[in-house]
């Protein structure tokens, strides 16, 4: 067990290391002077001395290797630099901290609800394989998968927020902010549409994975044995099949997490929701490079942490994983 954990830890370490290296190298690999990126259109007017001073300030006059070490050192101290947009001098870490909770809120709710609903429907569909219910659900999810989620959001806003006026059209809360219980209700009202859109976006993946995993398991000998000895159908599905389907489902879901989690960016942008994704979208407009890099790094770390959690859950879900590695 410990040996396996150590190997996985090294793998996660390498991924993390590569992600931060991409972050470091990207602005330096792009043709052109990185300083032009920092100073933007103002660069030609700054004058030679000012440009050299700026170059020294950002450490761009040093050799690449040394720059990398400085970058790693800053990162270890939790220093991701200053955001350009907030000229008052907000650090990237500060801005990320303010926005991250909103992303966590809607992503957490959507992942949970889509996994629950998608798995339930996937199991239902798998037990009635080939029936018209199965066919109906499958085509429904096939269709849903072809719909761009951001477009769905652009349709829900005019209908539910503008014409019917039931829900707010954007943002994460009302300004001025409400107090206590009213605030909770307000935040929930603002989160509802983004969560619905994201849940619908995640659902097909959860459904398809669960359905496929259950197929494989429903055909195994031990399920046939359970049926033969007269175990009620629902018990066979929930106790014997579902438990064993959970592991591949979780694994496959985690593999798609990079794509699923990234998708929140576009949805937050449509709703003007104050999460990391929308922050990155706004940062594109103002060419706020440190903020963009910080956002990417935070997404990567989140995915890695979720993968580690899954990894730690495996032995609980499947005792064989533990036994095989001791």
């Amino acid at each position, binding site marked *: 067990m410990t040996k396996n954990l150590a190997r996985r830890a090294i793998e996660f370490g390498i*991924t993390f290391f590569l992600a931060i290296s991409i972050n470091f190298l990207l602005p330096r690999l792009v043709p052109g002077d990185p300083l032009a990126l920092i100073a933007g259109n103002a660069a030609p007017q700054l004058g030679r001395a000012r440009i050299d001073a700026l170059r020294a300030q950002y450490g761009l006059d040093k050799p690449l290797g040394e720059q990398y070490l400085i970058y790693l050192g800053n990162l270890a101290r939790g220093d991701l630099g200053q955001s350009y947009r907030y000229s008052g001098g907000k650090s990237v870490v500060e801005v990320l901290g303010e926005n991250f909770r909103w992303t966590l809120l809607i992503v957490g709710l959507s992942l949970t609800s889509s996994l629950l609903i998608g798995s339930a429907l996937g199991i239902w569909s798998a037990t009635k394989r080939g029936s018209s219910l199965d066919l109906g659900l499958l085509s429904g999810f096939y269709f849903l998968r*072809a*719909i*761009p989620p951001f477009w769905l959001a*652009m349709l829900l806003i005019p209908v539910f927020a503008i014409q019917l006026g039931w829900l707010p059209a954007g943002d994460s809360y009302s300004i001025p902010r409400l107090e206590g219980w009213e605030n909770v209700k307000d935040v929930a009202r603002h989160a509802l549409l983004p969560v619905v859109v994201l849940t619908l976006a995640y659902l097909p993946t959860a459904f398809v994975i669960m359905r496929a995993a259950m197929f494989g398991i429903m055909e195994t000998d031990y399920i046939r044995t359970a049926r033969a000895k007269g175990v009620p159908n629902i018990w066979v599905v929930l106790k014997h099949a579902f438990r064993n389907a959970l592991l*591949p489902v979780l694994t496959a879901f985690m593999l798609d997490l990079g794509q699923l989690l990234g998708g929140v960016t576009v949805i937050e942008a449509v709703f003007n929701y104050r999460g990391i994704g929308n922050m990155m979208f706004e940062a594109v407009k103002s060419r706020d490079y440190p903020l963009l890099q910080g956002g990417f790094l935070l997404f990567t770390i989140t995915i890695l942490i979720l993968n580690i959690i899954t990894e730690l859950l495996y032995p609980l879900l499947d005792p064989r*994983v533990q036994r095989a590695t001791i």
Partner: protein
Amino acid sequence: MTALTQADGTPRIVLTTLNAGFSSRRLIRITGWVGGCVLTMLLALAFFPNLIAPYDSTKRVALPLQKPGKEFLLGTNDIGQDLMSELITGTRASLFTGLIVSFISVVIGTVVGIVSGYAGGWVDSLLMSLTDLILVLPFIPLVILISVYLGPSQRNVILVLAIFFWAAPARLVRSRVLSLRTETYIEAARALGANSFHIMTNHLWSGVKSLALVQIVLIASASILAESSLSFLGLGDPSGKSWGTMLYFARASGAFMSAAWKWWVLPTGLMITLTVLSLGLIGYSLEQRIANSVS
């Protein structure tokens, strides 16, 4: 990073395609035909937009934000261009971007998958670690980051999408190669003195050909969706006409908040959905046909 193998050493199964389980040949044929007909119509729009579109989509032909009428079937956009013509002209950028991306990705993915699966050892470990790294990275945020540094253009969208989309087919091809490698005809070829290059380009390639074909279709549908997201975020070519860019301008001008969503936003998204769906149906149909012919 997602590991190549489970703790007990068995390879993990990557469930990326729909395991439908319907073997009804009639259903498979119908889905294939429906998808094929829709795609043919879309290709006609993509190849001959000027013959079909009523107006030049780059010219201002009327007052901005006109409602749909006899003259302008879907009204006009915020600068007075005909939306119907924009919708037709946009087919080319959206469809071709998707097809080019998927072609490049599947070519890279197939080469990586064959080499990785056949060579094994450290080559396999290295290539699959790279694949896993790409699969685990947050897709859209990294694409945003790269596009911002490279600048908005259709070429860069194709480039960054291809960087991502080769990973999934590489995994699928590799797992097929792993099972092919132990087949007797491969062993026979090796015993007869065929070199690795010959085995990979002839025997293994013919074994994964159909899989690669299906992947081209399925990845095209995925990259059309991704392209529309990127263009919608304003990372595509701002002057080029694609469905994603149309939705970007619908949002930027605030028109989607007014009644204009019905003739600006709705048809544009339906075109994306229709395209993705038609490719999905063709992919499904091909996949099932191949599965049936094998069994």
